[in-house]
């Protein structure tokens, strides 16, 4: 499963990436980028998650992800705030499995 996270500069979600990798299954790819390059970096992703501070960009993100059939949602504020990699990974997995 390829999980791609987006936030303003890719830095704060980048911190979450490391935590998520601890809960990840072998073969999972998790990466974080800045939102402005979403069109380029979303290719090949299975799930897209946005940092809650740019939740107003969800519509934009869906405009890019929906045509590609990639489920997209906002990282839960609590999981993001506490850098809870396990919760964020679970959220990604559920999003992917329920698409």
């Amino acid at each position: 499963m390829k999980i791609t996270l987006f936030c303003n500069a890719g830095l704060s979600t980048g911190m979450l990436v490391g935590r998520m990798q601890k809960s990840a299954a072998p073969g999972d790819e998790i990466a974080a980028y800045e939102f402005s390059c979403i069109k380029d970096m979303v290719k090949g992703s299975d799930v897209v998650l946005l940092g809650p501070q740019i939740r107003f960009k969800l519509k934009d993100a869906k405009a890019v992800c929906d045509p590609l059939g990639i489920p997209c949602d906002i990282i839960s504020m609590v999981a993001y705030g506490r850098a809870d990699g396990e919760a964020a990974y679970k959220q990604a997995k559920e999003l992917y499995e329920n698409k």
Partner: protein
Amino acid sequence: MGNTAEKKNFMDIFVDKIMIIAEPMGRLSSIPIMKAIQSGFSANMSLILVGSIFLIIGSLANGNLGLPPIAFLAPHVAKFTLINKMTMGFLALYVAIAMAIAYAKEKDVSEISAALLGCCVFFVINFNEEDLAEGVIDINRFGASSVFISMVVILVAIKIFSYFIERKLTIKLPDAVPANIANAFISLIPYLAVVSLAWLVRTVMNIDLVTVVNAVLNPILQSVDNIGFYTLDRTLSGVFWSAGLHYENMTSGIVRPFTTQWLAENAAAMEAGVALTDLPHIYTQGVNIWSNRPCFAYPILLLALFSKAPGMKAVGRACLIPVMFCICEPLMFGLPVVMNPFLIIPYILTCCMGSVVTYTAMSLKLVNRCFASSPWAAPCSLSALIQTGGDWRALVLIVINFAIGCIIYYPFWKAFEKSLIKKEAKTAEQS
């Protein structure tokens, strides 16, 4: 119990009120032109950073920054400041190209065609046949003063270009012709249209948009750099972040063009020998990163690290390194400060006070104004020194802002701690 329920309602009302402004702002920041402006400017940050590094080395070598000049470099100073002239000094040109590419990406047309067209239009709109008569062009046209016109003209140019492409008002060769050759012809008519339009304006009708518009707009644009706007901008940022919304992401399309241009003007003035406390602008790109964080973020960190309330020490420790490197999201969402009825009032207050104090200090020429760019994630003290050219008073400003922040936060923090302890006691009771 009654208190918490009331406070919850207050939070909901608060967020709803913010969303009334935030929603349209969010939508504004999503329109292609805004995204193009944002990308166009952020793409230039590395160039600006490089220019700053060379400028600082050159200024150090020259003895302009208060330290004794570096003997073996002193005769070569112009070689160093040259790079700043060619980066920040050519801002309008780089912005034109970057924005053309960014807008083309939004419109799904060929980015390289747009880049070349943008560059060409930039030249055509700035120079006519007389300007080129001597075989030299005025490089002042590449600089900060042309930024706004370049932005508008390039966006219009690419808009027209993409309109032609979308409506297929192009030369279409028969299908038998290979794609590469056919593509070479597709851009011809749109190019002709756009370049001719720019040519008509500047060369045929001799309307020099840059000079004309600047004469009208400049007084207004320059006056926007005042304490009112700066404080309003920072306070609004505080209000939005309280609701967990990235204010800067929403507004950088509007604010960045100003602050970047103002930074470039300061750099040019600095090079021309203007004293660092007398540089034309205060609200430069990057100034609030090092001056405001010590006021609104550092105090919480300190209070959390020494707090006896449950969980706070752990959050403080987890957020220490990110906050030191200017990444405040873990603190904002983790403590949390976001949607926290106890902390959003001091948070907004500190955003406001920090900006007032900083702007006033620079207004009164107590601290150097900023002329250089620093990597935004650099620790505040480092950024302060880089941007102000090594002014130790900037560090004093940081300490003052920090102290003010601590004073503002303290009573609210104590109330917050009390609520946490009460909550824990209650859960302990119930279990």
